[in-house]
């Protein structure tokens, strides 16, 4: 069987475990694929480089990475490609010259817009909102925040005021403390937008603990299994996420196609099994789908899946 490695930002993150699930599904479909699911202990580029080095030594056929750093991985993935290994990135991308293609979970602009729309839903036309992000270096979070700001600059959203961006470093306690800090420094705060699964859970907890349910709402990107409780408690009305299972599934299909000789070039159309077809843009990037919104009506159902 062809070995395809799924390298994630760090082990033990629910989101990536779900992508692994999708990857296994794809492998079963394809038949001759063996999945290696791996990632460093801490979300660092150095750790991923060590892992990719050992994958190269194993002569895997393809490497699918969610990068902790778009630039730092380039030299090692280039080396991998020189030795005939197909490298693609998914979720969090590698710089263009370091991979054959990138599968974005969704379109960055769409995510930014989604985040703003969800907050407008709970805040109304006017009010203060704040962002609780992951680490200050996180690539995709930073992109989404930038997109959010673009959307907020539009006249339609002039009433929404982004008062602060804080970083919880994807640590529960720090995120929690940052959320409490937001409550204090911004008494009129209406919503916290946390585009990270750790942050949104911690912020939800903080709202419940401070008995601010109904006064401050949390929204952002989270996993249904982790958020179900917060939706029930009322701290969270709605949140969004793309389907990580489909993301893993599609990435493996793409990698497999490349292994089997498909070429990644602008405009190319590559099959992704049951999900459909990816069309590469000029940067060899493809986006999956618009993030899906979860609320009280459907969260229980999806919580069982991921």
């Amino acid at each position: 069987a062809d070995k395809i490695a799924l390298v994630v930002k760090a082990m033990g993150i629910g989101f990536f475990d779900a992508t692994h699930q999708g990857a296994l599904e794809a492998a079963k479909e394809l038949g001759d694929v063996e999945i290696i699911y791996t990632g460093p202990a801490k979300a660092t580029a150095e750790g991923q480089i060590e892992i990719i080095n050992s994958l190269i030594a194993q002569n895997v056929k393809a490497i699918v990475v969610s990068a902790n750093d778009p630039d730092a991985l380039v030299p090692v993935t280039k080396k991998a490609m020189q030795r005939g290994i197909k490298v693609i990135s998914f979720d969090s991308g590698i710089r263009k010259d370091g991979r054959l293609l990138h599968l974005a979970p969704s379109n960055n602009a769409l995510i930014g817009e989604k985040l703003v729309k969800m907050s407008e839903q709970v805040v109304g036309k006017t009010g203060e909102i704040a962002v609780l992000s992951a680490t200050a270096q996180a690539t995709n979070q930073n992109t989404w925040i930038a997109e959010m700001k673009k959307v907020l600059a539009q006249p339609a959203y002039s009433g929404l005021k982004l008062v602060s961006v804080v970083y919880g470093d994807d640590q529960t306690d720090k995120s929690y403390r940052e959320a409490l800090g937001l409550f204090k420094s911004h008494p009129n705060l209406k919503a916290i937008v946390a585009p990270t699964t750790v942050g949104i859970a911690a912020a939800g907890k903080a709202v419940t603990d401070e008995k601010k349910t109904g006064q401050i709402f949390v929204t952002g990107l989270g996993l249904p299994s982790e958020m179900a409780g917060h939706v029930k408690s009322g701290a969270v009305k709605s949140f969004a996420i793309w389907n990580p299972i489909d993301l893993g599934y599609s990435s493996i299909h793409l990698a497999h196609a490349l292994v089997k000789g498909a070429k990644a070039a602008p405009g190319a159309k590559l099959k992704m099994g049951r999900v459909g077809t990816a069309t590469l843009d000029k940067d060899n990037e493809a986006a999956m789908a618009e993030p899906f919104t979860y609320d009280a009506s459907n969260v229980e159902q999806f919580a069982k899946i991921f």
Partner: protein
Amino acid sequence: MTRPSLNLRREWILLVIIAAIALAVGARAPVFLTLRNGLDIANDSAILAILVIGQMLVLLTRGVDLSVASNLALTGMLCALAGRAWPGIPLVVLLAMSAGIGALLGALNGWLIVRFNLPAIVVTLGTMSAYRGAIFVASGGAWISDHEIHPLIKGLPRETWFGLPALLWFAAAALLFGAWLLRWRREGRELYAFGGHPSAAVYAGIPVTQRLLMAYTLSGLLAGVAGLLWVGRYSIAFTELASGFELTVIAACVIGGVSIGGGVGTVGGAALGVLFIGVVNGALPVIQVSPFWQQAIAGAVILISVALNAGSQRQRGRQILERHEGTVSASAAPPAPPATPVPQGNRA
């Protein structure tokens, strides 16, 4: 026992600094000075206080326990797993379990240290990684998130007893226990003695092995209980929980005047060290210091406080020459023998 005035003085200085920071922040953001916020800070510091007492016991013996955060996370994870597996588990069992597992992990540190006569810093450096890895093995790398955490675990830190949050009672219990042990029990005094002069402690007949084991076991026990509270407070358990927190714990001890060199430190000082970190941590988001500054400020604070510490300790010493009148200071040298001749002869 008369504690030297110097020690008292530095504790007062620390208190004044804490008050000054609180007032200064309050001037910019009045919300900081409300009772609510005070309780928040105290609540936030409670778990740190519990850990600091354990760490202090170990530091007093010239040791260090770098594995506290890993111990906390491992114990917390095991409790969370137990809560998920047996929904009917009573709270007492959970508490006993956290204390027991924590104590066991701590005792393992202690055993390695005394049985093989190994340096504490290396042993706990090793167990720090080993315990952390064990969490991954135990949980299969998965998160135990909010809805899977046992309601009793989640409820515990949010309980209110006699008008104060349960976390505060836990912290108070830990502090009182520390003070009782270190001030009023032989075992505690012997920790000071051992830390002050290890080989002398052997000569003096102190059961050194038991005392060291006690210190590490207690440090582990407190870390274990802190683990249960941590998991309850943030209602989540995962591999990287509280990672790096050991440095915060040590920093609180050092700021509070507990010496890394052993044998020196008071529970009051350590509590102030915790309070200091709590106030600074609570203040930074409130006055909206750029999040990027937080770590640099924490580092600078540690450096300044240890430098101040060292400065005040340097002045002590003996004095051979007679002092001039009026310069009698608090840290008096032993007075000279009286000049009144005691009749005596001498044969060489």
